[in-house]
């Protein structure tokens, strides 16, 4: 329980002359839910992109289960068990809902590529097992009734849930959610929070969460990391963060000031 699942060690990322991330370090232990918060432009999304391999850090180290993942392709990092979602709704809009989740399960479907071409018995078995697993996932996210619908036709909330289902299908050990409830109404957001909590419990998934919805973040997270201008300005349990002066100045206070 105490071993760090993800260790982010002094990563920096520069765009041209701009320091989007500067010496940011934090770690996530197995079973933890950690929130990453900060004002717009603080570097949260850049941090997500660097950790998930979409871009490489200018300097610093990232270890997942003690192995360095710097320089690995995003797809390889996914196979290690580190899976992310995107800020905007990201689904495959033209495919059916179930096919969306099957694609998410691509890397975790134990089937040889050749086998799937020849449609061998083993391949059929593996695929149908994956399909059952995906249907289960859809059921948990209350999407099963739409399984044959075109994903693009789902409601906004439905698309957000589908995005999570696609990520879950990859059997993550660490799930990185980028503003998962942005744009959901309060009820939906609360439901979503309960869902994450439940998944965390039943699937033993650790979670790294970027979110502006403070109620959700405060209620859900074991620990918070606060970024501002690319630097980490605070880290601690929610109660500490709420009381932290510099956090109030940079971020929470903005609401009050407005």
């Amino acid at each position, binding site marked *: 329980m105490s071993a760090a699942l993800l260790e982010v060690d002094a990563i920096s990322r520069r765009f041209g002359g701009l320091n989007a991330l500067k010496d940011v370090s934090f770690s996530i232990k197995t079973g933890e839910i950690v929130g990453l918060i900060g004002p717009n432009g603080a570097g949260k999304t850049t941090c997500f992109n660097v950790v998930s391999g979409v871009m490489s850090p200018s300097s610093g180290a990232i270890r997942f289960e003690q192995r360095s993942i710097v320089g690995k392709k*995003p797809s390889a990092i996914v196979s290690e068990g580190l899976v992310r*979602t995107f800020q905007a709704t990201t689904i495959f809009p033209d*495919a059916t809902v*179930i*096919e969306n989740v099957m694609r998410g399960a691509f890397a975790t479907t134990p089937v040889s*590529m050749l086998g799937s071409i020849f449609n061998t018995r083993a391949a059929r078995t593996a695929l149908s097992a994956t399909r059952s697993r995906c249907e289960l996932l859809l059921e948990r996210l209350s999407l099963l009734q739409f399984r044959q619908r075109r994903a693009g036709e789902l409601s906004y909330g439905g698309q957000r849930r589908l995005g999570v289902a*696609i990520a879950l299908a990859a059997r993550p050990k660490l799930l990185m959610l980028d503003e998962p409830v942005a744009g959901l109404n309060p009820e939906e957001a609360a439901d979503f929070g309960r869902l994450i909590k439940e998944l965390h419990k039943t699937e033993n998934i650790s979670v790294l969460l970027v979110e502006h919805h403070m109620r959700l973040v405060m209620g859900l997270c074991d620990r918070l990391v606060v970024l501002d201008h690319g630097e980490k300005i605070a880290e601690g349990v929610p109660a500490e963060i709420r009381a932290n002066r510099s956090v109030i100045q940079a971020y929470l206070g903005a609401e009050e000031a407005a």
Partner: protein
Amino acid sequence: MEGSSIATMGRDEPRLAPRRRLLPAAVLVIVLAAALILPQLTSNQFYIHLANLMLLNSIFAVSLGLIASVGQISLGHAAFVAAGAYVSALAALSFKLPPILGIVLAGLVTGLAAVLLGKILLRLRGVYFVLVTFLAGQVFTLIVLNWESVTHGANGLLGIPAISIFGLPLSTRLRFYYFALAAFIIVVTFVWALMRSQYGRAFRSIAENVRLAESSGIDVSHYQIVAFALGSGIAGAAGAAMVHYIRFLSPDSFTFNDSIAYITMLVVGGRHTMIGGVLGALFLTPLPELFRGFVGAQHIIYGVILLSVLLFIPNGLVSIGRSFFSKGSEPETPK
């Protein structure tokens, strides 16, 4: 093959009622039987020649469609066709390699070349990929034209042998027809199986949403290269088959215009489906023959028909067939 498609395959269609599944199967059997028997009924070699070109063009269009299935359109496809043709023709002329092996070699060499080129070119996507493949195709033509010691430059290669299977030379149109038909069935079946497999799933994911595909654990560059190499390899092998049929090869044989022709087949037939490429090739290849007599106006009529198809059947010929099979039960989903 009929009715299923690159776009819909693997989308986990609702299970068709037995009768609905029977109809496409029956059509398939009838078409196959017709393809086997019809050529026997005509003594007109010209129609068989035309049928041969239709089959070869179908393969070219399908192979381009395979590359397009990862969302990339190549404007240099003819260069791969030509590369395959040159490999096999030169192997036959210089090393007396039997054409049938030459075709395999051509497929391997062009496929391998596509792997190497793909590593560089596939970093670009969308319209930039289209443009860079156009340029690469132009460079290829120039190289073939100027590397005289090997390719004989503009003089071209003459006396290329016909394919021979177990000592039986496929020197007549009819014999080649059955060879081309077999090749066509193999390619179409292979591509169909591929698109139905996990590969197809990966290809479609990449075409629809690259970022999400990558974060779903699909190695985008790997699968793009696989699609590019397979598509180019098939094109190269088919180009080789064609050159042992035409038996003359020059840098003019496959040019930018041919690349455009393949794309046209794909678009006119229906670019999101494999069968669309086939339909496009089957429709466009014999089309000029209908008005060959109108010299001068021939091309104008062709252009007008092409425009009309684009204007009035925007989803390609395949959409006509599909609405026939689905009988309007499933609403067409706009792209």
